[in-house]
């Protein structure tokens, strides 16, 4: 699997090296200058989409057909893709934490906000890992292009659904105080919440990986 991970990692770096450097510098600068961590968190999400390009590169060059002829088990070919996704997310998370700390040092807010940086990064990481796992499964089942499309459709549908429910007055009876109470509980137990979110993301990752392996095994190229 080492060879497969290296293949995707170096192919992606070949494609995106300059782009990644530019985005890292730009988002890092904006996070510090505007005292806004959003750019760092957004970078984590973006990195997972950069890694998805590995599927498109494989399709372009017919790699899947060639890979089947190599002495590698099918699950390793799939797992390598998921591992590369995690590696890219990991790089973005590390960069996000480093730049978050730099931003707080520059702006003199490190003493009272580093905990928030870590917990938010943890929650964002959990969301990105879970959503990336679903997208990767869809990319293997259908294609990377369809996976991106389906994901955005679901994303938009969720927000549109809430908007329409609100417009229809259905959300008026929603027990908002329970949601607020849950929010307060989260604030009080943030470390536990982050841990649970990361565990849930790990579970989604493993389930999607297993499902993707099953799909890949049945595929023909």
């Amino acid at each position, binding site marked *: 699997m080492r*060879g497969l991970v290296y*293949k995707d990692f*170096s192919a992606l770096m070949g494609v995106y090296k300059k782009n990644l450097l530019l985005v890292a510098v730009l988002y890092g600068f904006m996070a510090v200058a505007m005292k806004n961590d959003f750019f760092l968190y957004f970078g984590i999400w973006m990195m997972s989409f950069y890694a998805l390009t590995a599927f498109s590169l494989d399709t372009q060059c017919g*790699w899947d057909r*060639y890979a089947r*002829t*190599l*002495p590698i088990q099918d699950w390793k070919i799939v797992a390598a893709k998921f591992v590369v996704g995690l590696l890219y997310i990991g790089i973005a998370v590390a960069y996000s934490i480093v730049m978050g700390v730099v931003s707080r040092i520059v702006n003199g807010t490190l003493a009272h906000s580093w905990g928030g940086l870590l917990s938010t990064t943890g929650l964002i990481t959990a969301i990105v890992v879970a959503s990336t796992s679903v997208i990767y499964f869809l990319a293997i089942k259908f294609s990377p292009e369809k996976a991106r499309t389906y994901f955005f459709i679901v994303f938009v549908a969720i927000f549109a659904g809430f908007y329409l429910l609100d417009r229809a007055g259905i959300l008026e009876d929603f027990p908002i105080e329970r949601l607020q109470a849950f929010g307060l509980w989260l604030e009080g137990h943030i470390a536990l919440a982050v841990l649970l979110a990361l565990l849930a993301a790990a579970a989604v990752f493993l389930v999607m990986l297993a499902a993707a392996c099953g799909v890949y095994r049945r595929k*023909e190229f």
Partner: protein
Amino acid sequence: MENLIEVHGLCKHYKGFALENVDLTVPAGTIVGLIGENGAGKTTTLKSILHVIRPDGGTIRLLGGDPAEEASRSEVGVVFEDAYFYGGLSARQISRIMSGIHRNWDSGLFFDYCRRFELEEKKPVKDFSRGMRMKMSLATALSHHPRLLVLDEATSGLDPVVRGELLDLFLEFIQDEAHSILLSSHITADLERVADQIAYIHQGRLLFQRDKDELLEDTAILRCAAGEIDRLPKELVLARHSGPMGAAALVRSPEEVRRCLPGAVLDQARIDEMMQFIAGRDIQ
């Protein structure tokens, strides 16, 4: 003699195309040329042998094992015309990747091939010419000391000089009688030069697998009047064609044909002419 590939009764069905009961063997120390028209089933056969697709029926033994088992594929080198690494990778990166995939990857041998083929180690594959890319694919296929090479249209689109180099390499590869090559190609002249056996797939069926020299000696083109062809025993006529210039037939056992039709004009049949006859197309 040991068979490195044994295919019996291979079937694969698609909408509009079916591969039916293909039997094929690749004995050790031989080059088997797989020929057939576009869409005849050559690539489907190769993909089935290499575990890229699952056959609907039949059995396949690859180096004595099941192609689905990774161990069976560990001593096979594969070159597809249109499937390889992403073009942004260099030879150096490809070697590093393959060293993580093949246990017996020999990077020294790989770079020897790169030098022999004049392939720059740091240059991305996409910057190579088609011939160089094919050489790179072949260098990759050879550098884990495979016993068997499976090559799908590996010489198509290459100039005669590059093709000649690759064909020499194929002959070098099988010299010790333990290695074999299954080579699918439209360039029948290449197969006439290097193949020991010819397997012909037509419309999803294997029409024959024969020793190449025997096939060329035992098959001829008879040019005569249509009525004369009718006088021949049916088993001698493989295919026939009538045109404005007269009639012609692809016949077996030229000596027997001569006995039946003394004075008949018999030309040696080339492999591509056999294909054209059998496929029912005009010949020049």
